[in-house]
């Protein structure tokens, strides 16, 4: 399957990035762990790239299949866990690095304040 790459930039008040996300056959999941189901930003990334959006609170997925993760973290738990695992992390809230795992949150792996307009297809 042909996937497209997107460039995800920080939104207003956000931090980090930009991230380039291109799913592959092995890593094709746009993994969403926000409250309330699939977030529009996760859906927008999936629509733009051809990746498959996936709700991490409804069922399990192997980490190795995850292309990127979308969170809406209030600043302590999710914001650190995924950068710690070096999974590209997109936070829809305008969070800055914080919490006990703060040392893992780097600009090349984390971007925040993201809205759908911050997602641009590149080739």
């Amino acid at each position, binding site marked *: 399957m042909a996937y497209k790459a997107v460039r995800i930039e920080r939104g207003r008040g956000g931090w980090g990035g930009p991230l380039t996300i291109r799913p592959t056959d092995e890593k094709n999941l746009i993994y969403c*762990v926000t*409250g*309330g189901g699939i977030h529009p930003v996760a859906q927008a990334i999936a629509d733009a790239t051809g990746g498959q959006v996936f709700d*991490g*609170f*409804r069922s*399990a*997925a192997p*980490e190795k299949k995850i292309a990127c993760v979308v969170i809406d*973290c*209030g*600043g*302590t*738990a*999710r914001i*650190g*866990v*995924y950068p710690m*695992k070096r999974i590209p992390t997109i936070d829809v*809230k305008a969070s800055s690095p*914080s*919490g*006990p*795992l703060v040392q893992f949150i780097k600009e090349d792996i984390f971007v925040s304040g993201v809205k759908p307009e911050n997602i641009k297809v590149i080739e």
Partner: protein
Amino acid sequence: MSMGKPAPSHPQSEAAGASEVSLATATVLTVLYEARVEEIGPMVPELLEAGILIFFGKQAPPELREIAIVHDGVTLVAPLAPQDIIQLGDARYTVTGVGEVASANFSQLGHIVIKANGAIEVELPGEVSVEAGALHLPEIGFNLLVLRPGQAETTSEASSIASPLPEALDQSPAESLSITPTPPQHHLRRSLWAFLSAWRNLKRRATPSG
């Protein structure tokens, strides 16, 4: 994974909680949330040393379970508020501050982050601060409760004294520990506020520090 003995900040036991008698007036604790802990992630002790406890409900994926205490709670009856009591096993902690997304996270995902820093203005929007001091982690199987102190006239409908619930919260009625008629709401709010202030002052005098 024993974290040592809990130092009860309140000597009352959970079993006696049908109604609790304060030093000044009769009080009732309304249960806003009740859960049993099923799993404690391997990173929890490290976070405990940093004064933080992270909780998630059973639907949490494996990577979040590593850093969290996983429980079977489902329903939050009313948004969290200062002066609510968080009970972990036998130890009780009084809430001092509630982040703006904390109640929604707790209701939707069973996710709550507790920091024992006594903050009234929390540092991060997902946090709930409790009075400063040590947090203690009992063994797996302990109960997680959120309790709201109120006057003896408080009704079984906790939502009658709570602010309107966000859409995500379950509207089921509180498991109150006493059932009495509802007084007029404005009298209830005024007397509840007066009681909470008095109760807080009494508790400060009666409770040992730490």
